[in-house]
C-alpha cells in the first residue's frame, strides 16, 4: 500500500488569504492512498522542509505532494528535500495552488478552496503512479570537431586548442582557408584578405592541439553530447602526405589543364594541384575526374617526376571514426546562382560576373594579375555597373532575406574600380544601402563622395548585348524615370546562400535548419551559437549571411561554449526520458520521424517465441539525446513508448481524479 504525504503551504497569506488551507489538508485525508496530510505557513522554509522530512520518517511516507507555488519555482527545492529525507526526488508532485489558484481567485474563498482541493487530488492521483527515477551522468570525450576550415572554423579551432583541448578540423577542399582566401581586400579597411588570413592558417596548421583533416567529408554522426561518434571520409589524395614535400614539380609537369574553381574558372589549374599557392597543407591532390591517368590509363608523368615518390594512384578513400565531445559547425556559405535571372541573361553574357569573380579579377595573384580586365575580350572596362540584391530580397526568384554583406562589398568593389581605372564610370543599382557596422557607413560615404561612384536607386529590368556593350536598362526611382547605361562589365552582388549540402549535414548531425537551409540557432536572442542538439554549436555564415568580423566573433563564442562543455569530466542527465516497452513495440518506426533529437531508432532484438528464436525490430531511445518532450508517445499507437514521469497512466489518473 502506497503512503502519500500531502503538505499544503500557506505561503504566508499568499495562499492562505484566498484558500482555506486547513480545509484542503483535511479534505486530502480522505483521498485514496493519503496517509498523512497537513498544512504549514511556509513549506519551502527550513522548518517547512524539516516538517516534510520528519513526516516521511514518522508516517513511513513513500511519496509526497506539496501544494504551494508553481513547480517551475520550487520543484528543485522540494526534490532536494525529498532526497535528504530519504526518498527519491521523483516521488514528488506539486499542486500549484498559488499562481493557478489563490492569486487568480482572491475573492471567492469557497471556489478557490474547491479548486485547490481538486488540484491536490490530481497531484495525489498522479504521485501514486510515480516511479523513482535515477539521474545518471555521461562522460565527456575531451576532443572537439570543427566542420569546415574557413575563417570561422579556423578561429573556433584556434580558440579551443588554445584552451588546451584537441581539435580536428575537417575540410572538404584540399586546403583550409575557405571563401576568405578568394577575397582580395576586406572592407572597410581595405587591407589584404590573404595577409590576415594566411597567418591564421599557418597557426592552425602548426598548433600542437589541432589536426587538419583536409579533402575529407563527414560521412556519419552517431551518439550525443559528450560522445559523438563521427565517421570521416578521407578522400583519396593520390599523394602520400608523409612523403610529399610540396615542391610543386608535379603541378608544373602535369599535362592536363582544368579550369580552376578557386579562380572562378577564369584560368586553369592542373589535374594534380593545390587550389592556390598559399594552400595549407601545401601538398597537392590528384583530381581523378580529370587526371589523364585515371581517365585513360596512360600518363603517370607526376609519378615519374616526383622526387620523393609520393604519388600513389592506388590510394583509396579511407573511413575513420573518432569520438568527440563537442562539434562546431562552420561550413560557410555558397553564392546564389544568378542564372535564374533571365533579365540578366541567364548567365550567358560573359561580362556579367559575380562579386567573387570580381575579387579574383582584382587580386594580384588572380588570373589577370590584379588588372581589371573583362572576361570576354580582356579589355579594361570603362563603364562598370554593379547590381545589388541579386537573389536576395527577392521572393519571386531568389531568397526573401537580406544577404547583409553585399552593400559593403559592392561599395568596396566600386571604390576599387575607381581607384584602379582612373577614367572609369561606376554605377550601382540598389534598393537600399544598409551599412550598420563600425566604420561601414563612413566607407560607403567615401565611395560616393570621394570615389564618385554613381548610386542609382532602382532595379534593373533587363541587360542585353549591343555590339561589345552591355545595355543595362532600369529605373531610377528617385527621378521616376527609366535609365539605360551602356556598360562594359556588369557585376552582380549575388546573395550568400546555404551550402548545397547544408541540409544533408544537418540531418546527419541532427539539428534543424530554416526554410533557406541556414542552420537554426537554439534561440535567436539567448542561444545564438547553440543548436537544439546539445553539444553542437554554430559558427559563421552557415547560420546566416555574415561578414568576416561577425563570423570570427561567433566562432570564438562557439569555441567558448565548446570549451565550457569540454572542461567537465562528465555531465548529469535528466531521467525524464522516453522508454520503450519492447514486448509491445511492433517496430513500425512511426515514432522515429517525430523526434526532433534523433533520439529514436530501430534496433533488432532476439527473442524466443513459440519455441523458436526469432529476431524482430523494436524502437530504442537514446537517453543521452532524448529531451523528454513525449511527442513520440503520441505517435506510438500501441503506447509501447511512454514518457517517464509523465506516463500515460499518470496523465489518465490525473484526468480521472479531476472528474470526480
Amino acid at each position, binding site marked *: 500500500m502506497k503512503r502519500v504525504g500531502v503538505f499544503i503551504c500557506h505561503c504566508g497569506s499568499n495562499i492562505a488569504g484566498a484558500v482555506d488551507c486547513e480545509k484542503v489538508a483535511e479534505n486530502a485525508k480522505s483521498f485514496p492512498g493519503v496517509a498523512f496530510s497537513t498544512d504549514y505557513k511556509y513549506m519551502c522554509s527550513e522548518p517547512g522542509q524539516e516538517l516534510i522530512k520528519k513526516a516521511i520518517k514518522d508516517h513511513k511516507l513513500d511519496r509526497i505532494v506539496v501544494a504551494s507555488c508553481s513547480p517551475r519555482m520550487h520543484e528543485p527545492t522540494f526534490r532536494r528535500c525529498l532526497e535528504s529525507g530519504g526518498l527519491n526526488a521523483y516521488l514528488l508532485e506539486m499542486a500549484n495552488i498559488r499562481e493557478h489558484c489563490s492569486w487568480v481567485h482572491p475573492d471567492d474563498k469557497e471556489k478557490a478552496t474547491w479548486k485547490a482541493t481538486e488540484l491536490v487530488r490530481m497531484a495525489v492521483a498522479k504521485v501514486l503512479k510515480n516511479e523513482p527515477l535515477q539521474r545518471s551522468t555521461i562522460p565527456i570525450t575531451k576532443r572537439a570537431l570543427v566542420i569546415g576550415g574557413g575563417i570561422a572554423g579556423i578561429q573556433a579551432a584556434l580558440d579551443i586548442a588554445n584552451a588546451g583541448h584537441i581539435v580536428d578540423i575537417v575540410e572538404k577542399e584540399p586546403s583550409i582557408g575557405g571563401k576568405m582566401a578568394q577575397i582580395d581586400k576586406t572592407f572597410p579597411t581595405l587591407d589584404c584578405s590573404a595577409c590576415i588570413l594566411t597567418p591564421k592558417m599557418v597557426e592552425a596548421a602548426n598548433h600542437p592541439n589541432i589536426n587538419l583533416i583536409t579533402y575529407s567529408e563527414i560521412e556519419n554522426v552517431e551518439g550525443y553530447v559528450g560522445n559523438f561518434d563521427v565517421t570521416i571520409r578521407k578522400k583519396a589524395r593520390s599523394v602520400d602526405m608523409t612523403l610529399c614535400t610540396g615542391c610543386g614539380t608535379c603541378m608544373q609537369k602535369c599535362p592536363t589543364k582544368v579550369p580552376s574553381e578557386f579562380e572562378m574558372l577564369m584560368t586553369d589549374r592542373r589535374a594534380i594541384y593545390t587550389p592556390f599557392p598559399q594552400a595549407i597543407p601545401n601538398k597537392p591532390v590528384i583530381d581523378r575526374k580529370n587526371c589523364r591517368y585515371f581517365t585513360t590509363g596512360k600518363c603517370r608523368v607526376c609519378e615519374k617526376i616526383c622526387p620523393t615518390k609520393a604519388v600513389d594512384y592506388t590510394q583509396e578513400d579511407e573511413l575513420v571514426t573518432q569520438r568527440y565531445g563537442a562539434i562546431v559547425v562552420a561550413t560557410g556559405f555558397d553564392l546564389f546562382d544568378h542564372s535564374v535571372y*533571365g*533579365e540578366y541573361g*541567364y548567365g550567358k553574357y560573359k561580362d556579367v560576373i559575380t562579386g567573387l569573380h570580381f575579387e579574383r579579377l582584382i587580386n594580384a595573384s588572380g588570373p589577370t594579375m590584379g588588372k581589371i580586365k573583362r572576361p570576354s575580350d580582356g579589355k579594361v572596362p570603362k563603364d562598370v555597373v554593379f547590381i545589388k540584391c541579386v537573389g536576395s530580397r527577392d521572393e519571386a526568384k531568389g531568397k526573401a532575406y537580406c544577404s547583409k554583406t553585399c552593400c559593403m562589398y559592392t561599395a568596396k568593389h566600386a571604390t576599387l574600380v575607381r581607384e584602379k581605372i582612373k577614367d572609369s564610370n561606376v554605377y550601382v543599382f540598389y534598393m537600399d544601402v544598409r551599412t550598420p557596422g563600425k566604420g561601414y557607413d563612413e566607407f560607403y560615404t567615401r565611395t560616393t563622395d570621394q570615389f564618385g561612384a554613381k548610386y542609382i536607386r532602382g532595379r534593373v529590368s533587363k541587360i542585353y548585348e549591343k555590339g561589345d556593350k552591355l545595355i543595362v536598362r532600369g529605373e531610377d526611382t528617385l527621378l521616376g524615370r527609366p535609365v539605360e547605361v551602356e556598360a562594359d562589365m556588369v557585376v552582380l552582388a549575388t546573395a550568400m546562400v546555404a551550402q548545397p549540402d547544408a541540409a544533408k549535414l544537418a540531418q546527419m548531425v541532427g539539428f534543424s535548419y530554416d526554410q533557406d537551409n541556414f542552420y537554426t540557432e537554439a534561440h535567436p536572442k539567448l542561444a545564438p551559437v547553440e543548436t537544439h542538439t546539445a553539444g553542437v554549436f554554430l559558427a559563421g555564415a552557415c547560420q546566416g549571411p555574415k561578414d568576416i568580423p561577425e563570423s570570427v566573433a561567433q566562432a570564438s563564442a562557439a569555441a567558448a561554449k565548446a570549451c565550457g562543455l569540454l572542461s567537465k569530466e562528465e555531465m548529469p542527465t535528466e531521467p525524464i526520458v522516453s522508454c520503450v516497452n519492447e514486448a509491445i513495440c511492433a517496430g513500425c518506426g512511426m515514432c522515429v520521424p517525430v523526434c526532433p533529437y534523433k533520439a529514436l531508432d530501430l534496433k533488432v532484438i532476439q527473442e524466443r517465441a513459440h519455441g523458436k528464436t526469432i529476431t524482430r525490430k523494436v524502437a530504442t531511445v537514446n537517453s543521452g539525446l532524448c529531451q523528454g518532450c513525449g511527442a513520440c508517445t503520441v505517435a506510438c499507437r500501441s503506447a509501447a513508448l511512454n514518457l517517464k514521469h509523465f506516463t500515460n497512466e499518470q496523465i489518465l489518473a490525473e484526468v480521472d481524479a479531476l472528474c470526480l
Partner: protein
Amino acid sequence: MKYAYYPGCSLSSTGIEYDMSTRKVAKALGVELWEIPEWNCCGASSAHLTDHLLALALPARNLAIAEEQGLDMAIPCAACYVRTKATEVEVKSSEEMQKTISEVIERKYTGQSRARALLDVFVNDVGLDSINALVHKPLKGLKVVSYYGCLLVRPPKYGFDDPEDPQSMDKLVEALGATPVDWAFKTECCSGAHAIAKSEVGLPMIEKILAAAKESGADCIATACPLCMCNLDMRQGQAGSKFGRSYNLPVFYFTELMGIALGIKPEELGVNKHFVDASGIIKKLNEAEGRRETA
C-alpha cells in the same frame, strides 16, 4: 487532333490575315479547328482592369463550351490567350472560385479544358518534325527575328515557354527552313494601345524594336499577336518618319510564314494585306525556289 478554335475579335478585323493563315495552315497540318459557336469577348484590357470576377467569367464561358465538347482551346491572339489562361489557372487552383464562376456563367467549367496558345499547339502538339516534313517551299536564306511580345509567355506561371528568352517561334521558323536570328527584344513591349492614345510614348517603343531587329540583320519579323502586328507593321512608317529612318521590315504572323513554307498561295494567307510590302521577300523566296528547281 481537334481543338476548340477561339479567333477573338482582332482576327475578324485588323488581324484577318492571322485568321486566314491559321485556318489554312491548320488544315494543311491536319489539325481540326472547331470554332466555338457564339464565342464572346475575352474581356482583354478593360475587364481585368475593372472587375476581377468579370475578367475571369468572360473567358470561362468560352472554356465551358469547349469543355462540353471535351476539347482544349486553341487561341491565336496573345491577349486572348493570356486572359483565358488566367481563368483556367484560377479555376484549377480554387474550388470556391470554380463554383462562383460556374454560377455566374450558368455553365459548368471545371478546368478540364485548357487554354492553349496556337503557337504552343503547333510547336508542341503537332511537333516540329511533322511540320518540317510537310514543308514544300523551305524559307531558305530568310533571316527572321521572332517577336513574341509581352503577353504570350508571361507571367511565367501561364507560359509554355521561357519568359525571358523564349525559343518556340525561333525553332518553328528554323523548321520552316529559315534562319532564326537571336536578339534581345523578343519579349519587349510594343507599347500596345499607347501607340494610338499616346503616340509620344508608343512610337519610341516601336522604333526601338524595329531598330534592334534591323541591327540584328533580319529580313523580317515574325509575330504571334495582332496588336504587335498592328504596331510594327501599320505604324512602321509613322515610327520611321518620326525618327527619320526607313526600316522596310516586313512583319509576318508566324502562321503566314508557315503557310508560305507549306506551299499555300500568299494571297490565300492574306500576306497581301500587310502595310509593309512583303512581296519582295516572297519574290526572293520564289526565285530561290526556282533556282533550286531548275538546278
